[in-house]
């Protein structure tokens, strides 16, 4: 059971081609073909970079969500937390500018605040789930509401905007690039890589799968279940914080609508990627593909005038279901 998270073990079980493993990649390839057919602009580097940069927020959050879901939990608070952390980061930086002057040191402090807040929120969620013995769904439903109201309160129901002198300093973090690749994409890649290493190459990753698969058995196997679950939530909080760090420089603002429904998008990305919603089996690279697919669907719909805009939601829903059906349908036949 512990080994079910290892790619080679999975491959051994099914002979030859494993749809569960490769399904998401096939679906992605299908979408890319569809996109190209819809509008040749789709494959232009500009559009590809747009799509990937946009994916970075949900993608980074979804990598964290992969761990929480694999360990049998769920975190509904990520979207609200992203909004709240963005708000606090902006307020902090605005407060520091008069004393310290606009500059990178203020940005660094703002980022630190975001990371601290993310970890703290993860800790709160994790402690309530493990020590408080409340279902993760309820705990994070609660904190989702709390964070959302806190940002609305901070913003007086309006919008928090970053000081304009700070904006120009911070802006390159979203709009800048290294060797032609925008920073958000680089950060996304690094987070995914580290996430994959943790999931597939460390004890912690295997423990997550073990707990999600059967918590009692994991406990009898001398796994410190509470500690692993707590760490998974904190990892999720950290991922949200990293997303915030690149979200804030994009529009330099946070409001009650920031990060709305991000939790559902993150969960959808994880599931499209092949991770089981009930836990026990996690795929980080699948999650990355899932997140990219979600943005691609939006992008393709925006690039065509052929489909009524009223039907966008229906197309999105249908593609998500088909993508998951692709992997599950064949999996059950075996």
């Amino acid at each position, binding site marked *: 059971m512990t080994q079910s998270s290892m790619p080679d073990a999975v491959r051994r079980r099914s002979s030859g081609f494993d749809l569960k493993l490769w399904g998401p990649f096939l679906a992605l390839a299908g979408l890319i073909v569809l996109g190209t057919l819809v*509008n040749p*602009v789709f494959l*232009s580097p*500009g*559009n590809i970079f*747009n799509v990937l940069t*946009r994916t970075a927020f949900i993608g980074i959050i979804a990598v964290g969500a992969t761990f929480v879901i694999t360990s049998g939990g769920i975190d509904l608070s990520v979207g609200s937390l992203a909004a709240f952390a963005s708000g606090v980061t902006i307020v902090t930086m605005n407060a520091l500018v008069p004393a310290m002057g606009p500059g990178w040191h203020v940005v660094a402090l703002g980022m630190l605040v975001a990371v601290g807040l993310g970890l703290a929120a993860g800790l709160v969620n994790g402690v309530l789930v493990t020590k408080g013995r409340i279902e993760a769904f309820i705990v994070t439903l609660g904190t989702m509401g709390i964070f959302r109201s806190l940002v*609305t309160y901070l*913003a*007086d*129901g*309006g*919008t928090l*905007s970053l000081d304009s002198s700070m904006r120009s300093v911070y802006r390159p973090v979203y*709009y800048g690039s290294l060797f032609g690749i925008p920073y958000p994409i680089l950060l996304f890649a690094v987070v995914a890589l580290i996430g994959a290493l943790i999931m597939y190459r460390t004890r912690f990753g295997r423990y997550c799968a073990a707990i999600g698969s059967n918590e009692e058995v994991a406990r009898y196997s001398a796994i410190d279940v509470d500690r692993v679950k707590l760490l998974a939530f904190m990892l999720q909080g950290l991922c949200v914080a990293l997303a915030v760090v690149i979200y804030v420089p*994009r*529009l330099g*603002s946070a*409001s*009650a*609508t*920031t990060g*709305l429904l991000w939790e559902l998008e993150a969960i959808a990305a994880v599931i499209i990627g092949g991770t089981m919603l009930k836990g026990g089996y996690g795929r980080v690279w699948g999650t990355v593909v899932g997140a990219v697919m979600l943005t691609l669907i*939006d*992008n393709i719909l*925006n*690039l065509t*005038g052929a489909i009524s*805009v*009223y039907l*966008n939601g229906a197309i999105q829903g249908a593609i998500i279901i088909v993508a998951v059906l692709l992997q599950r349908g064949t999996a059950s036949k075996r």
Partner: protein
Amino acid sequence: MKLKLSLATALVAGVLMAPAAWAQDKIKMGVSIPAATHGWAGGLNWHAQQAEKRLEQKYPNLDVILVTARDVGRQANDLEDLVSVRQIDALVILPFESAPMTDPVRAVKDAGKFVTVVDRGLTDPSIQDLYVAGNNPEMGKVSAQYIKQKLNGKGDIVVLRGIPTVVDNQRVEAFQEEIKGSQIKVLGMEYANWNRDDGFKVMQDFLSRFPKIDAVWAQDDDIALGVIEAVKQAGREKEMFILGGAGMKDIIKRVMDKDTLVPADVLYPPAMIAEAMEITARHLVEKAPIEKQYIIEATLVTPENAAKYYYPDSPF
């Protein structure tokens, strides 16, 4: 007279008895508005709270009860609570949606309350005692006229719509009606949900899809802010201009500073709720005569008149 009476009651009743005694003598005005789910609604909430403070100070015997709802269903529940539990004398409501809220508001009216409807008209206008509204079709029309004039009647534009609602439909229909017959071509139209992030995303895709765009009708200032960033990122600021709507302070400031990317804005002020509350309160307390309708015009804001509409303290 009522004012004197309640003051006297409070003095006599003393601290312990005061709350109950107060509550009975006060005139109660319920205010039901949508929660701050997007920038404009945020401004609406701010102005409503300001008006609540102002009015309760001005009329000590007036109690303003402000409730916010996240959807139509919750707003209908709120109305029931306002009537049965809070026992209001008058209702000021900005309905989430026109048609579904018509019957719940009718129930309030049938209970003998004074009803003020703001912004979105009910399908049966005979219910309301007072109607205070911005003018959505007018807003679409003024926007179209400005774009037409600025482009000399010819050009390619893209349109970013709001949240699929009556408000959005009215604006877009009037806009399309007005550009009919001109050589203005709408290249694409997508929903951006009155939201900066969506405005940014949709505009990025419009920019990849269309090599030449002369103007953007963003319809809303939150969307416009997202659009501005997307256009800047693509380095195409020189090619087009953006027309938002509502009167957000950041956008008004840009207009004031003669930003060529944002040469104008069309007003649709969230402050209308404060106006509705004030007129209703004046009528309730002072029995001031009222007109049945106050329509706030969709004014075009240009660098010449922008200073008049700039509220630096508002969150919106």
